[in-house]
C-alpha cells in the first residue's frame, strides 16, 4: 500500500456565526472571526489517497487525473468565493477548518479511481490545520 498526497490551494472568505445565538454570544465565542463582513485565508489542501501500485503504469493514481478531480470538485467551487454565502454546504455548517476538511472529504469520497481516500488535510494558515479521516 502506498500513500500519495496531492496539494491544491484556494483563497476564500468566511466568517463564524451561529444563527441560534445572540450577536453577543457569537462575539464571545468566535471573537474577531464573527465579523459579519468576513475575512479570508489562503487555504492549502492536502489530499492523501491510499492504494496499490499498478504494475503497468507504476502509479497508484494518475496525478493529472487527481489534480483535475481536485480542481473540478473543490477548487473551482471554493476559490475566490465567500464560503458562507456561495458554497452550499456552508449554508448550514459553519466553515471552520474542521468542517471544511469534512466537506472536502464528502466531495471527494468514492470519486478517485483505483485508490481509497485516506486523509483530507486543510491548512487555514501554516500554523493551523485540520485532518479528517472519514471517521463518524
Amino acid at each position: 500500500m502506498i500513500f500519495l498526497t496531492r496539494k491544491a490551494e484556494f483563497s476564500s472568505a468566511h466568517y463564524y456565526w451561529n444563527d441560534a445565538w445572540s450577536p453577543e454570544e457569537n462575539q464571545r465565542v468566535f471573537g474577531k472571526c464573527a465579523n459579519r463582513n468576513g475575512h479570508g485565508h489562503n487555504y492549502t489542501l492536502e489530499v492523501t489517497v491510499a492504494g496499490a501500485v499498478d504494475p503497468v503504469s507504476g502509479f497508484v493514481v494518475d496525478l493529472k487525473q487527481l489534480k483535475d478531480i481536485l480542481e473540478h470538485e473543490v477548487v473551482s467551487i471554493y476559490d475566490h468565493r465567500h464560503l458562507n454565502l456561495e458554497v452550499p454546504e456552508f449554508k448550514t455548517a459553519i466553515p471552520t477548518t474542521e468542517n471544511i476538511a469534512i466537506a472536502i472529504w464528502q466531495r471527494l469520497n468514492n470519486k478517485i479511481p483505483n485508490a481509497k481516500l485516506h486523509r483530507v488535510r486543510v491548512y487555514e494558515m501554516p500554523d493551523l490545520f485540520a485532518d479528517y479521516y472519514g471517521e463518524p
Partner: protein
Amino acid sequence: MKAHLSRRYHFSASHRLHTETFDEAKNQAVFGKCNNPHGHGHNYTVQVTLSGQLDPATGMVCNLADLDSFAQKNLLARFDRANLNTLDCFAEQVSTTENLSIEIYRIFQKFPSAHLEQIHIEETSNNSFDFAGDRTPPSGTL
C-alpha cells in the same frame, strides 16, 4: 464527526546535552558539539494534534482561543527565551528533544477540551520528533 486539529507554536530556547552519569570525556564523545559548556539554542516548533467530536454549535474540535491561552500559559511562558537545563523537568534528565516531546505531551494532556493525539517537535528544519504516548501515531499523519 471526529476530526483532528493541529496547531503550531514557536519558542526559542537554549540547552546543553550533558549528564552527570558520564565523565567529561564521555559527555564530549557522546554529545559532541551539543555538549558545549556554554550551551547553544534553537528555534523550536511544537505541533500539537488534538482530536474530538465536533461541537455541533461551533463546528470545532475545541475553541482555538482556549487552546492558545492554555499554550501561552503552560508552554510559551515556561519555555520561550529560557535555558531548558534550568527548568525543573530537566533537573534529572538530559534536555534532548525526545525528553522535551514527552514533557510537552504531559503538558497538553491536561488541556481539558479535547483529546491529545500527539506532539511533534521540530528542533531544526532537519530534526523532528514525535510522541503519541503509548500509541503509534496514525498512519499518514507524519
